[in-house]
Each structure stands twice: as C-alpha cells, then as structure tokens.
C-alpha cells in the first residue's frame, strides 16, 4: 500500500509532514472562519429579515445599510478582496500571512454570502407560523429565537453545508496571497513546479473533505427535520 502511494504520489510522500500540516491549516481556516462567519451571518440574516419592509420590525435605514453592504462585498471577486484587504488584515490580525492572516479575509469574504443564505433559510419559515407566534403574544426576541431560528434549523444546516463548501474553495484562494493550507501547497508544488501528483492528491483530499461535510450535513438535516 505504502509502496503504491510512493509510486503514484512521489512528490507528496516525500513531503508528507508538510502536506499534513497544509491539511491541518485548511481545516483550521475552515472551522474558525466558518464559526465566526456563522455567528455574524445569523446576526446579519436575522437583522435583514426583521428590518426589511413588511418584516416584524421594519427599519429602512438598518435594512438598506446591511443589504447594500452584503451586495457590495458579494460583488468583489474573492481573490481581489483578499488582496485589497491586506493592510486591514495586518492591522486587525497583526499579520497578513499564514493561517492567522488568512482568517480575516476569509470571514469578510464568506460572511455576506452566508448571511444571504441564512436570510433565504429564514424566508422559508412559513409566515403563518410568525403570525401564530404574534397572536400568542410573543415578543420580537422570542419570535426570532423560538420560531424563526428554531423552525429554520434544517434549512440553516443545508445552507451551512453549501457555505462550508464555498469556504473550502476560498481557503485554496487565500493560499495565493500567503495563507497557507492545501491550496497553497498545490499551487507551490503542483502548479509552479509541475508536480502533477501533488495537484491530484490535493484534489482527492478536498473532494473527500467536501463529501464528508455534505454527508454530515445530510445526517443533521434528517435528525432535525420532522
């Protein structure tokens, strides 16, 4: 088995510790950036849902600011966003390179997308449920927490999977601007030094990772849906 791997992936096997480190970096970037952007996206998604015209607590000002900001950041290609954020990243994180430096652009890049996804998950909650909650005398925080978020859980899981997959994609891009991770590894060896086996090994690992995320997501949806 090991012989076979040595034969097929010589450049990977000779750099196994580095390959493994890159994998860990990717996982750290996905998990940390994912968790931070999840919290932000839920806050933004709820804010947009509640303040939009006809929402539970319409507020044109708040709605327009968040809505436009989300659109603005979503329209910038991520690689350009990551590059242009370098000075800000250095100021916020203390460094603009490595896994630490990659987290900030990842969060800024994925949160607007995630927020839109959460917003659409919340929009899927039957307006009749909201009306029933109001008729029961629930206040705004209670409706958000006990109806909107609670009833949207299966959809939130679904959109989180989609977002995580996009995020894995983006971690490969931040590699280019010095972020480390599997993408960086594949570009440095596979692309720049023509080590095709490195590219292929990276693809296999990323495909397995995405598959795992989707499998866990599906299981979670099944558990949470009645």
């Amino acid at each position, binding site marked *: 088995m090991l012989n076979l791997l040595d034969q097929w992936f010589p450049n990977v096997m000779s750099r196994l510790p580095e390959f493994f480190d890159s994998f860990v970096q990717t996982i750290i970037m996905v998990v940390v950036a994912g968790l931070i952007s999840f919290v932000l996206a839920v806050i933004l998604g709820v804010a947009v849902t509640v303040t939009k015209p006809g929402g539970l607590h319409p507020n044109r000002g708040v709605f327009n600011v968040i809505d436009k900001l989300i659109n603005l950041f979503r329209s910038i290609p991520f690689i350009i966003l990551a590059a242009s954020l370098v000075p800000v990243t250095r100021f916020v994180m203390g460094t603009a390179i490595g896994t630490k430096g990659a987290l900030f652009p990842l969060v800024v890049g994925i949160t607007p997308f995630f927020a839109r996804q959460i917003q659409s998950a919340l929009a899927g909650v*039957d307006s*009749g*449920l909201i*009306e*029933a909650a*109001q*008729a*029961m*005398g*629930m*206040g705004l925080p209670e409706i958000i927490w*006990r*109806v909107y978020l*609670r*009833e949207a*859980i299966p959809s939130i899981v679904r959109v989180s999977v989609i977002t995580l997959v996009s995020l894995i994609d983006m971690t490969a891009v931040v590699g280019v601007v010095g972020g480390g991770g599997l993408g960086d590894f594949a570009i440095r060896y596979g692309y720049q030094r023509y080590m095709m086996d490195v590219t292929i090994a990276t693809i296999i690992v990323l495909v397995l990772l995405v598959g795992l995320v989707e499998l866990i997501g599906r299981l979670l949806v099944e558990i*949470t849906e*009645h």
Partner: protein
Amino acid sequence: MSSVITIRNLTKKYSSDEGEKIALSDIDLDVDKGDIYGIIGLSGAGKSTLVRCINGLEHYDGGTLAVNGKEIADLRSKELRALRSDVGMIFQSFNLMPSRTVAANVELAFRGKVDAKTRKDRVSELLELVGLTEKAEAYPGELSGGQQQRVAIARALVNKPGILLSDEATSALDPTTTKSILALLRNLHDTLGLTIVVITHQMSVIKEICNKVAVIDHGTIVEKGNVFDIFAAPKAALTKAFVATTSNLDKVHELLDDHSPLVEPKPGQVLLRMNYIAKEVSEALVSHISREFSIDVNIIFADIDIVENAPLGGLVVILKGDSKKINDALAYLKERNIGIEVIDRA
C-alpha cells in the same frame, strides 16, 4: 349583556403604488360576551383583515375598536401582547410549529412565568379536552388536518382566554372533520363560556354554530343580525346568495326553467313555497291544512334545519283542491307567520 368587542366606524386602507385601496370602511360591530359571532364574506371581502384588527395583528386607520374596554390602537406593544393572552386565535392552515411535538406546541403558548409542573398539567388537561392525549409526543406532520386544528385550539386556550378568533379554521377540512371541529368549538363555548368570532366563507358553518352573523362585502358590512332572522329573511343580495347555498329549495327555479312536469301545476293547482320565518312554528302545518281545508298537499322539496332551537327552512308544495279552499289555506298559513310565495298558479 356586555359587549366584549366594540367596533365603531372602523376604516382601514392599504396604500400601494397604484394608490389607496379601501380594505375596511365604516365597520360597526358589537360582539357580546358569550356570542358565537360569524363574519361571512367572499375571499378578499376584508373579513380576515377585520379579525386581525381585533388582536392588533393589523393596524386600522380610522374609527375605534375596543376589546374588553381597551382601545387597541392606544395599547403599547407590551400591553398588546398581554391582551393577546386573552384573545386566542386559530387559523385555516393550523400554523403549528413543525419542529415541536404536539405537547411542546401547546406549551409554547404560555406567557409569563409559569412553573414546569403547572405547564405540564395544563398541557395534558388541554390535550384531553380536545381528545388528543395519546398524540402528545407526535409531531404535527404526523397528524391529520382535523387533529392539527385540535392541537391549535388547545394552544389557543393555554392562557385561558375569554375570546377565541377563528380565521377560516374549518376551510381546509373535509365536511365530517368540519362538523367535529365545530362541535368542539360549540362545546368549548358552552363549558368555558368562550366568546368566539368565526370568520368563514361557508354559510353552513354560520348555520351550525353561530348565534349572530355579519355579512361583509368589499370592506363594508351589508347585513348583520341574529342568525335565525338573517336566514329566515335575508335582505342583501349577497346574503340571499349565501343563504341559498345552505338550502335546496332554490332548485325549484331550475326545474321551472327546464319546464319539468314535476313543478307544472295542473289547472286548479298552486305551486307554493312556504318559508319558516318565525321561531314559533312547531305545529303540524301540512296535515293541518290538508285536513282542515280538504286539500291535497304534494311536497316537492323540503329543507328544514334547526337553527337556534327553531325550525328554519321551508317547503315547496303543490296544493290541489277547491280554489276557494286553497285561498283560505293560504290565508291561514299567513296568519301562522309562514312566508308564502305563490310561484305558479294554473
């Protein structure tokens, strides 16, 4: 009788790009304690908007609307939420939370601090009341429509409201289930002293449980009153159309248009429609006129229902006999407060 919901000159407008649309105009309504008040109208007539003004889910633009003496427009949001504990509501689409069990759905409606044991006891008491004790741990998706509506009713009663608003609660249900839900509502009205406002587009629902009815059309009330009086003598065209849906007596007109021999009076005969329009009718009228005036009474159609404990409806008959005797019989019926309509006389 004290009025628990008092509505005066209520007006509501929707403004859109195309201009203003009047949703409700000049609504006057008094719902007394213990009433089962039906509000009937076609879709888009404004009845759902009206009922949503009662618990403040919709704002109104003019007029006054007081529930238990409190003007809804004057309430702060906290007071409004407190009021909603006393005004339960059920919906056409049931609106149960799909992610929660039946028991959890009912429990969700508790407002304020209530300890766990009280909650649990109250939930099982309510589920027993609506006959769903064994479904406590089921999810709404596993229940039939009728069962879901029963859960919704239990949920609406958690805070022991004095008023229940029912917005097309039976419109998504089959006729048998509709009957059982209406029977449950009537039972809750009788045992808990609930005041119920029933929104519907089905006159049969009004006939089944309401004691008062308001007919609403294009945002205005065209007719209102006691259910018996409205059914016995509808005035507005829309009301007549609604009443006709609950009776088969109007079929006679179809038969007449088709020149059916069934409704073709022969010489000396009278095709007659008799309407029960007063509550006191309880005697054996047909056999009485038949015996007393020696005429034959051939019943073509009959549609008699019991509304507010009095017979309501009527007969379409052909009277056969001596012309003078028939006139005497008609005079007698008029005297007995029977609505007489001679459809055809040969």
